């Protein structure tokens, strides 16, 4: 199988993960489920970054750094998301974003 075909298949999988994650982040009401949507989209970024390293430039570490940055973004998103959930729940027992619609600017 040609390398380009394998690359295209992997990138299509990554695109599917990003699409499903976007759907989840936009459609879910529960704050934790929205975070799961973001995580799924970032999962696609991890996959695409790994594929980019393997097929384009394995002699350079740039794509590996991209994967590291995506992992860090995931960690930061989860930490701040959970902290925001705790803050919102503590002040007004909110666990769904529609219950906090008055925060809309």
């Amino acid at each position: 199988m040609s390398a380009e075909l394998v690359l295209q298949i992997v990138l299509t999988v990554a695109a599917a993960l990003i699409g499903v994650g976007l759907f989840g982040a936009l459609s879910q009401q529960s704050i934790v489920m929205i975070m799961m949507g973001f995580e799924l989209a970032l999962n696609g970024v991890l996959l695409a970054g790994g594929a980019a390293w393997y097929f384009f430039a394995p002699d350079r570490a740039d794509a590996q750094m991209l994967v590291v940055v995506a992992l860090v973004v995931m960690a930061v998103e989860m930490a701040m998301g959970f902290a925001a959930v705790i803050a919102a729940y503590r002040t007004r027992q909110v666990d769904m974003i529609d219950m906090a619609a008055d925060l809309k600017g």
Partner: protein
Amino acid sequence: MLTDLSAWAVTAVVVLGALSVAAGIAVFVVDSMARATFALLASFLAVTGVLIAFDLDYLAFVTALMMTIEMAIMAVFMIMFMMNPAGLMPMTMVHNARGSALVGAGAFVALTVGIWTIDWPVGEVTRPADSTRQLGEAIMGSHMLAMLVIGVGLFATIISGTLLATARGRYDRFGADLRAARPNDPVPGGLPR
């Protein structure tokens, strides 16, 4: 150019890729939030398998460890805060599902059209003997600035996460006008301002 991957590895990449997408869809289909958490974990572990096929053993290992712990924390959070975490009552908690599906499908189609129409620059490449060593040398050398920024960002996350999640703010400790000489803590001994 033929890929360096063996036929087995290509098959594994395709199967794991399909598995990761199927698990990703399951996240938003299953009733129970606990099941959704483990479906997301399955999706991450499938991507980890693909990364191993791409010789990125270290990044795969980090991803697997991080996501396993993260999903465990997420399961605890659901039990703490969310209604109906076990999915005992069938319920949907979505809004604007149609528009969201359109946006998600639109993003997928746009990306896929690009992926299958671009003439990718795949050619002869030289592979490093050890991808982990390559990453380590980049972090400590040419990409140190990126790691410095990441470090500062993570530190800021620790501080702001703690601030957001803490129950007692400065107004609880020092009064509405912030003029109390000593903080009003449940356990005395806190530092004054």
